[in-house]
């Protein structure tokens, strides 16, 4: 399978990365080189093989459903580009 410029632009939109016409064209070539390389996986017989879900066999750790941490609003917003009273500020989303 290979991608065209239109698909690259659609994927860039899904990934929320702005691309110029030039970027999209360059990326098309690069992505096709990588997709060409991974193509060989199709020759592997995987009948009866489960997809891997965990590389180390282990049970999911569980803990009591109680609050163990918190009251760190100031820490949480400390690195944000724009905040007000411990809220993240973003451009207007709802008109």
């Amino acid at each position, binding site marked *: 399978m290979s991608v065209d410029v239109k698909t690259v632009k659609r994927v860039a939109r899904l990934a929320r990365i702005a691309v110029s016409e030039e970027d999209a064209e360059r990326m098309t070539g690069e992505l096709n080189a990588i997709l060409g390389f991974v193509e060989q996986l199709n020759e*592997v017989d995987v009948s009866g093989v489960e997809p891997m879900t965990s590389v180390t066999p282990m049970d999911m750790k569980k803990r009591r459903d109680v609050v163990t941490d918190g009251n760190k609003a100031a820490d949480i917003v400390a*690195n944000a580009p724009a905040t007000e009273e411990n809220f993240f500020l973003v451009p207007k989303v709802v008109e």
Partner: protein
Amino acid sequence: MSDLTQLTISQARTKLRGKEITATEITEAYLAAIDRANPALNAYVAVTGDKARDMAKASDAKLAKGEGGALEGIPLGIKDLFGTEGVHTQACSHVLDGFKPRYESTVTTNLWADGAVMLGKLNMDEFAMGSSNETSYYGPVINPWRRSRLDTVVMPTTHQGDGGFVSAGGTRTARSLDNAQLVPGGSSGGSATAVSAFLCAGATATDTGGSIRQPAAFTGTVGIKPTYGRCSRWGIVAFASSLDQAGPIARDVRDAAILLKSMASVDPKDTTSVDRPVPDYEAAIGKPIKGMKVGIPKEYRVDGMPEEIEALWQKGIAWLKDAGAEIVDISLPHTKYALPAYYIVAPAEASSNLARYDGVRYGLRVPGKDIVDMYEKTRAAGFGREVKRRIMIGTYVLSAGYYDAYYLQAQKVRNLIKRDFENVFAAGVDVILTPATPSAAFGIADEDMAADPVKMYLNDIFTVTVNMAGLPGIAVPAGLDGKGLPLGLQLIGRPFDEETLFQTAAVIEQASGTFQPEKWW
């Protein structure tokens, strides 16, 4: 010894405990060395001099009372991927511009609890994506090793040369260094260069497809990627969560064992942290390997591999045989599919993990006409080319209609790769010996690799299988090539059997010796 930076961790530990030297002295020696070398090598992206001095002072107070942890007063460099409270943590990306976390990663918390001193944050490929440390927002790291030529120089009289071998009147051979700058490998290139060039006693690193072992091999240092689940991933910037593991880069096998003992822990904050006590890895060093079964996988003999790598491999086999190990030929039939499967699984996980960099909660924000425009502009400006490439691949293979063909297929192949290893271990093989990399360090801005991303990816061909199977792997220097560059061998072990890796790597190190670059910086 006049230069304290030359001490290994185990030597420094003895001298610190014996009060022959102080933590402040050794810390000042490293800070001075960084000051001199960093403009040339670019290993550190942030130096935390004041913090280092404070930590050293605290260590000295403990050492004076005969107290202190396993790493008391030992100065370390920390890869920029580890969250360090109040200190530069950007995964060497522009998108995390100005980020200083309000928390400390579990691995570094463990190191400070054992008394280690932080010198600063080390350069790396952006988000650990790269094999040459050229994708960093902070520019490439330079390998302290350079190619050299052996020249025969006629010596009319006996002369005390600088660096050459003295001969009485005849000829002498001298290595002359080439000026071409080489990469230190990646993604932990800053860690490898800093350890190799004596800019820290040891360093933390991370390995998703070979990012500890490949740079270790390129710089003549020792690097171990432990079993998935051995070191907590909590507080480490995530790249591909099912593959990422932290580990140390060190000057010798013993130092790597000392560092891993402190880095590893059982951590309730990481659900993939495995509930097993951390053994004393150092105790494995020096144990005989007589009767140990060493597997040699035929699939690691790849087309176009330089003869010197094959020769090095044979030398390694001979050393282990001489030490009493039994050498057996093995087959890992799905080896060649590990790299293509990796280039689906890792970008898929990366595209998901890196979705969080949106200009809202931390780092860079580029204003836009609405929120989506802001996201898109922020991510376009914040991520470098390689990172964008991988996010795009990951987004594509996870998108509707392609998920089964790419992602599910790759995860099935991954199970087959793991099964290959399980089969040979079940057949009684204790450890597997392979080359660490398909070549020695290459030049900065290599044109072939810049033109074709897949060429760069092939650097990880021998290391990536280990991440796909979650196994431990160690790279240990084993010799120099004809141009005087270090080459490494890799040992792969059973899950959680890092001890066998240290035990066997120590035998290789004993036979090969350790390697230091000639200082030009």
